[in-house]
């Protein structure tokens, strides 16, 4: 049992953009980083309508699958100006964009290896708590097949919703909060 009760979540509301928008928000990796690309996507609701008041945040390892963080038992590494965190509000058409690099594979439990992946938080007006999903990469077929998360999804889960698509300047990753193509979301 925990000693203190956890503070509950509330919606970011319609006006989060005044507080959560950073000029460099979308740049998990700064402009000019070697190998950097854009992940672009659109967030839609159960009617297929774009969600214009949504914020998407990403968190990931570096190209070597390492973190600048003490809780990584392999030790923290110095990330220089790589931030690992991307934050993008959506525009009127529900579109977001994150500038980043491809993460390396990251060890999982019991000797498994996780395929390169990016954790994603989605928050919006009309959402009382965040939802969490993951971005995987289409060219990592073998690693994806061995990934402990992807390979243990329930049969009914639409695993293809977790795989980004190649695009001209990087990847496309759409988020469907509800409906026919509903994205797989995780209990975190």
């Amino acid at each position, binding site marked *: 049992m925990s000693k203190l009760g956890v503070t509950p979540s509330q919606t970011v509301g319609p006006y989060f953009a005044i507080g959560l928008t950073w000029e460099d928000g979308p740049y998990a990796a700064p402009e000019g980083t070697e190998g950097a690309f854009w992940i672009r996507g659109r967030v839609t609701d159960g009617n297929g309508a774009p969600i214009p008041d949504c914020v998407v945040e990403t968190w990931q390892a570096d190209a070597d699958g390492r973190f600048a963080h003490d809780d990584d*038992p392999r030790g923290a590494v110095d990330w220089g100006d790589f931030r690992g965190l991307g934050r993008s509000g959506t525009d009127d058409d529900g579109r977001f964009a994150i500038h980043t690099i491809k993460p390396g594979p990251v060890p999982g439990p019991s*000797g498994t290896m996780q395929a390169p992946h990016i954790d994603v938080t989605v928050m*919006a007006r009309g*959402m009382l708590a965040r939802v969490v999903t993951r971005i995987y990469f289409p060219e990592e077929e073998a690693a994806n097949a061995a990934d402990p*998360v992807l390979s243990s999804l329930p049969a009914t889960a639409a695993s293809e919703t977790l795989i980004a698509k190649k695009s001209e300047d990087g990847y496309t990753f759409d988020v469907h*909060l509800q409906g026919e193509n509903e994205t797989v979301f995780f209990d975190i």
Partner: protein
Amino acid sequence: MTDYQTESGIVVPSYTRENAQIDPPLDYAGYRSTEFRHPKNPLVLLPHMLTEVTGPVLGESRLGQLDYDLTRQHDDEPIGQRMSISGRVLDSDGRPVPNTLVEIWQANAAGRYRHVVDDWPGPLDPNFTGVGRCFTDSEGRYRFVTIRPGAYPWKNHHNAWRPAHIHFSLFGRAFTQRLVTQMYFPGDPLFSEDPIFNSVPDPKVRERMVSSFDWDTTEDHWLLGFKWDIVLRGPEAVVFEEPHA
């Protein structure tokens, strides 16, 4: 917290999942906009692995010197009741969460947000943006100076008014701890009719979002002090299954 490397597996801290029991449901009829913005499929359990137990370490270079003081961001002072809000960011084990970014945003004293979509006929204040940022200190303490926000109307139902609140955003030290919530003021008469406040199922848990008035931080002829501690999910001492020999 256990964190060490084994030969064939990596062991990382795991965080409590008690938020699943206390957070509002994503599908909540009282808040109409949730209807088409919640997933209908069951969430898939994600074990806490390296990406989930780490999180951004943001430098203080992100901050301006006066980002913690929302009353000193313009040439003149904003209109309204000057107040401070301070407290600690802790995890559910009672451990402070140091050096973590706390971001806030709020309406002005008239209940109007400086946002292009907020167009109800409450006055804007040219001296108030309504945005603050600070880092917690080594003991997890944070402090903002601001003016007390007003209540504001919204279109959820007839005569709908949100109780006065300040939005808080926290990263904690791990992706699992990410929290966006709202801080309310004690005794607000609007609580009973507010679907967002009441979306938290347990009335006792709702009270965790309510700040308290505090004489110790109230300053004579200057400002009213309010206190509010924020509790993020703490680590759970759980070890992954040992690999087969």
